[in-house]
């Protein structure tokens, strides 16, 4: 009897569930060929992803759920997975199990089975288990659990076909009543509760035995669920029943149930698994960890890797930037000439050449940096180092009131704040998550880089590198300060615990690294393609209105806007309407600042440098760059904050506090600089 009411009809729909580090996402990629985020980083799949698999020319919809250890509601990952699994919107669940770690993975599997989920157990990483001397008798395991079991090595694509075959064969699988014997005492209470539920109006979707067990465990979530199902009176009665019986028990029911579950698992393992040899304890992974997590070496190694990451990104990326610039310059000229030749009106020529091609070019220019940075991050994640880095950084991050894991979103933020904010989902604690989100925009994303490059190139020709580097540091410093401020004043008291699996080191596969990198890059390109493109068009329109005005002059709408707010920025050293309008548009996307400046100074690429030298002194330029770094993040980031926090409150707070902070910092930079007579 299938106990969850399946809503799905039509195409076969399956869901992948399982522990982190079970190779679930790799399997998903093998099944669907979809571009996916695969990481050797616990909890890398932060939202459910959907793809299509094909078997015998029939398509199967595959949903990849976040990897979770249990189905509690301790982190967003778990909530996403649990909500989907209880929704019943699927035909079958594939529980991906790490074969070398059967007992913990089975703990998750039996939770699903108790809920009444129709399940196929997929013993993944079967090769690693065999190498470790673990032999699993699949047929016996299948008999013990009462469900089909398939062996796979997702990384090598082994067993995928037979998995698909089994899936199709078992599409109508109905797991018959799976039962763990919890002993007379608990069983009699279970039966008592079930008989009471039998008389209630509880819907058929809920497995009563499961509900009874959860009631005995005093799980607050089952209370919430049952409130909608049965009368308050009955719920109260059931609660009292459990409480009364538990008083008489020397061990808490919850403990008994957990221990019985593991006893059950131990029993299953004893019957189905043979260990050929004693486990070799002195593993290579541990040897690497001895160095990498060392008390004294851990942080220097981490810093070295971060340094190498930026070195890699910029040393390899910068020459490519030149090519892309040249490429778009050539296309712009070529198209402009072409349009001129065919006699297109100058307004159209200007729209296409100045508006669209320049605009898109200005965004794609730093694509090499983004690709390289995310490539490096992908290698760090897939190799398993990221988890160690979180461990190493935990002490420092805890001092800042954050969590070891919080630095991952920060590192990703250097590429783009949008995936950075999204990466905060793996944080279990709401406070950690919010604080990490609030400070993420201070990580200087690659969209700010073109602004620095243009300004540093124009005004700091001899020490541009140091200037740009100092801005990154300024961002980190402010993030650290703001994190402690937020912790102190807004989120006092809440404490979270570090809990992280350190997966064995693996040589990252080229395929997964590229898929992984591409996921983040494509999010960025999508943003560039939609938001930035429309912004570029919007700017061009505003620069041409009202009709008849000279393109981007002080009389155009853009110029008037700028003039209106320019006085705010006067004490910061850049009170011109041009600077002000570029900042307004920078909120739409930070890289647009450069493009807008190009437009409002009505100059081409090369001319901007001259215009900047004429309009900014080095001090004002530095103050302006600090402003661009800190002030209100781009719309895409704010939108992501809204969707991640599910409230308008946090994007509004982020936008406001960062603007104020930016103003203060730029004010201090400019005024102190003036007093000291630096860079005037």
């Amino acid at each position, binding site marked *: 009897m299938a106990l969850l009411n399946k809503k799905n009809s039509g195409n076969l729909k399956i869901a992948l569930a399982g522990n982190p580090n079970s190779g679930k996402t790799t399997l998903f990629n093998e099944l669907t060929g979809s571009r996916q985020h695969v990481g050797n980083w616990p909890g890398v799949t932060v939202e459910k992803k959907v793809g299509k698999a094909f078997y015998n020319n029939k398509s199967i919809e595959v949903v990849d759920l976040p990897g979770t250890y249990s189905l509690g509601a301790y982190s967003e990952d778990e909530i996403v997975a649990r909500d989907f699994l209880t929704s019943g919107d699927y035909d079958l669940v594939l529980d991906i199990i790490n074969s070398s770690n059967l007992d913990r993975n089975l703990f*998750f599997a039996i939770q699903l089975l108790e809920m009444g989920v129709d399940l196929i157990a997929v013993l993944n990483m079967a090769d690693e288990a065999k190498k470790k001397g673990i032999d699993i008798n699949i047929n016996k395991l299948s008999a013990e659990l009462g469900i089909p079991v398939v062996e796979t090595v997702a990384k090598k694509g082994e067993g995928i076909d037979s998995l698909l075959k089994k899936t199709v064969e078992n599409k109508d699988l109905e797991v018959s009543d799976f039962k763990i014997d919890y002993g007379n005492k608990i069983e009699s209470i279970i039966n008592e509760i079930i008989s009471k539920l039998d008389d209630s109006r509880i819907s058929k979707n809920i497995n009563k035995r499961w509900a009874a067990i959860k009631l005995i465990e005093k*799980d607050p979530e089952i209370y919430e669920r049952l409130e909608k199902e049965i009368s308050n009176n009955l719920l109260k009665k059931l609660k009292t029943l459990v409480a009364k019986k538990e008083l008489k028990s020397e061990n808490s029911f919850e403990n008994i149930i957990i221990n019985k*579950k593991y006893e059950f698992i131990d029993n299953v393992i004893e019957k189905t698994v043979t260990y050929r040899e004693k486990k070799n304890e002195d593993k290579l992974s541990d040897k690497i960890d001895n160095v990498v997590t060392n008390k004294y070496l851990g942080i220097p190694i981490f810093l070295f890797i971060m340094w190498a990451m930026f070195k890699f990104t910029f040393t390899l990326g910068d020459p490519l930037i030149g090519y892309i610039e040249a490429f778009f310059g050539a296309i712009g000229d070529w198209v402009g000439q072409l349009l001129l030749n065919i006699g297109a009106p100058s307004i159209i020529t200007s729209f296409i050449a100045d508006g669209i091609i320049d605009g898109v070019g200005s965004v794609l220019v730093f694509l090499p940096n983004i690709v390289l940075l995310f490539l490096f991050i992908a290698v760090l994640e897939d190799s398993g180092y990221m988890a160690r880095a979180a461990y190493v950084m935990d002490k420092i991050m805890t001092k800042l009131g954050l969590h*070891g894991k919080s630095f991952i979103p920060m590192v990703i933020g250097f590429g783009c704040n949008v995936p950075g904010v999204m990466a905060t989902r793996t944080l279990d604690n709401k406070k950690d998550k919010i604080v990490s989100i609030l400070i993420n925009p201070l990580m200087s994303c690659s969209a700010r880089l073109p602004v620095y490059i243009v300004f540093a190139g124009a005004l700091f020709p001899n020490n541009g590198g140091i200037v740009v580097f100092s801005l990154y540091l300024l961002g980190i410093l402010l993030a650290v300060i703001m994190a402690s401020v937020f912790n102190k004043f807004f989120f006092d008291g809440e404490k979270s615990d570090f*809990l*992280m*699996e350190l997966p064995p080191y693996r040589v990252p596969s080229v395929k997964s690294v590229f898929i992984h990198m591409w996921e983040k890059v494509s999010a960025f390109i999508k943003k560039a393609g939609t938001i930035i493109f429309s912004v570029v068009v919007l700017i061009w329109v505003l620069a041409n209105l009202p009709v008849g005005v000279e393109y981007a002059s002080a009389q155009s709408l853009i110029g008037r806007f700028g003039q209106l707010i320019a006085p705010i920025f006067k004490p910061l050293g850049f009170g011109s309407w041009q600077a002000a309008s570029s900042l307004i548009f920078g909120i739409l996307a930070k890289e647009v600042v450069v493009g807008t400046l190009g437009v409002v100074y009505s100059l081409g690429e090369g001319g901007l440098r001259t215009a900047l030298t004429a309009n900014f002194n080095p001090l004002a330029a530095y103050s302006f760059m600090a402003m661009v770094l800190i002030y209100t993040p781009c719309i895409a980031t704010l939108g992501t904050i809204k969707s991640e926090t599910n409230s308008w409150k946090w994007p509004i707070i982020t936008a406001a506090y960062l603007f104020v902070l930016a103003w203060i910092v730029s004010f201090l930079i400019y005024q102190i600089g003036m007093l000291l007579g630096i860079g005037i």
Partner: protein
Amino acid sequence: MISLIELKTGEKACIEKIIGGRRAKNRLSSLGFVRGKNIKIFRDNGGPIIIGINDDRIALGRGMASKVMVSQKGSDK
């Protein structure tokens, strides 16, 4: 019976029980921390402790680790 955080690097122990609230119990049990499991301390730098359990290495914050009560079973060092 002592708390896991009292163990030193390289020491081995057997889990006796998990104390604390249901949240901690739940998380720990789903990671495999249950009565009867053997563990080994791989690293304790003062922050989270790296614990070997089954074939896993799990880093646990001290707060969480202090909820794992163990009996010592010797040392590698």
